């Protein structure tokens, strides 16, 4: 079982690289959906394990929540936002994709070499999964940095959120249920507010390129 979780954690990390390599807004949402599906799978495996071990079903409920929210609801919400917003086909990122991937690769290598030396992580099991998750958080933040349109910022925020969740659940195999619920409600609120903001920005400026904020200087 542990091997499956290891393999899943590294596949989730790889999906974040695929996200950075994407060039169009619709693909961001599709990749995010796939990443959330992988996380749901991992949570499901952990839930079944804990169900057979002590009979707790809270991780299974968390898994169902993830599927409902992150795989179905939030991507659909983002798609609707995208459909209503002015979309010009232009280059959405800085420099070129292989350079961005190379930077993400160095971020991952950096995470691996630094976090390994933290006492407590260096014992057997937690090793790989936690480090992968922290790398995921940093790559989500880098994704936010490298994208010009607001849809990029939103998906980046969601990936950071994913990373935090995965870090928590891989290291403890379950959080207090109320904490999970709180996180999810926070998430939905944040996304709805960001979606509304996207509408408003688009109305005002006829574009969702956040670089145009520079025109407000002075």
């Amino acid at each position, binding site marked *: 079982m542990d091997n499956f979780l290891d*393999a899943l954690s590294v596949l989730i990390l790889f999906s974040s690289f695929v996200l950075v390599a994407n060039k169009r807004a619709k693909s961001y949402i599709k990749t995010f959906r796939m990443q959330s599906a992988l996380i749901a799978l991992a949570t499901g495996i952990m839930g079944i394990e804990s169900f057979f071990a002590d009979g707790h079903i809270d991780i299974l409920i968390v898994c169902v929540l993830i599927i409902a929210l992150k795989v179905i609801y939030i991507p659909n919400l983002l798609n609707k936002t995208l459909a209503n917003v002015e979309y010009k086909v232009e280059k959405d990122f800085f420099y070129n994709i292989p350079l961005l*991937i190379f930077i993400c690769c160095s971020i991952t290598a950096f995470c691996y070499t630094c976090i390994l030396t933290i006492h407590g992580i260096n014992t057997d099991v937690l090793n790989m999964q936690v480090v992968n998750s922290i790398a995921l958080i940093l790559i989500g933040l880098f994704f936010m940095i490298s994208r010009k349109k607001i849809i990029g910022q939103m998906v980046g925020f969601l990936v950071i959120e994913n990373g935090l969740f995965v870090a928590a659940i891989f290291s403890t195999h379950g959080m207090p249920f109320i904490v999970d619920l709180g996180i999810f409600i926070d998430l939905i609120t944040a996304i709805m507010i960001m979606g509304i903001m996207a509408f408003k920005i688009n109305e005002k400026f006829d574009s969702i390129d956040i670089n145009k904020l520079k025109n407000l200087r002075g």
Partner: protein
Amino acid sequence: MKNALYVLVQLFVILLLAPLVNGIIKKIKAFSQKRRGAPVLQMYFDLWKLFRKQAVVSETSSWIFKAAPYIVFSTAIIAALLVPVSTLLTPNAFFGDVILLVSLFALGRFFMTLAALDTGGTFGGMGSSREVMISSLIEPSLLVSVFTIGLISKSTTILAMMNTTKNITFPLAQPAFIMVFLALFTIIIAETSRIPVDDPETHLELTMVHEAMILEYSGRHLALIELGAVVKQLVFITLLVNIFIPHDQLIALAGVSGLLLSLLIYVVKVILIAVLMAIAEISTVKLRLFSVPNLAALSFILAFLGFLQYFVLWR
């Protein structure tokens, strides 16, 4: 004696199976386009016909044009001898490893691209230039992948790699192995000129890479090049399949019957991967030429992550 048997079995299996793999992929693609498509065994008939046709040679070309098909074919055959189809039948002495394999294919590619430039036409130069770009971008990923597997099995010899993964319960569940498997799968798609890197059935100059290089060939030269290409494809598939989905540890029989069972399971595995490749081909489009570096970068990341999982995180 054992060596002679090994050589015969390898050549027989690989030469016979290679055109079949191509036929299966084409058939699946045809089905997905709602056509009946050519018969699965079509390539055998094509090769037979081509061998007996006259060759038309360009006046501008030199001996390199006529020598290249033989070199491409023989390097593919030698590479086929280096990758065993079944670990139950192995030679006594094994003088080749993955780095030699990569270099053999580089030899074939060197002469292929030279022959394309030899004809003095525009298509040849275009095919060579694109092919050279794609192969340079794919090569680091290929070497990092095979190095990772080699480091896990403590040897760069292919037989040692196959023997090591036989002892792991389910290799594809290990994080390092699944990453390297995906990386090698992407590399196979690039090296065998399949969609999304290059379309193997096109003749438009916008989309040709491999086809542009062999545009001038006809007759037995073309047959040798096509056969060499499918043998190369099968060698890569064998490498993938025998390292990541090992089956010889499940065979309890010994002797000839054990060998036959092993070969049968090998054929099934190859057909499985061929179907997977066909599905990958029909579900994507051919990438713009300058988007191929993105794919190469992703492939490198897969291999690098695989290496990191094993060697930095100790799993």
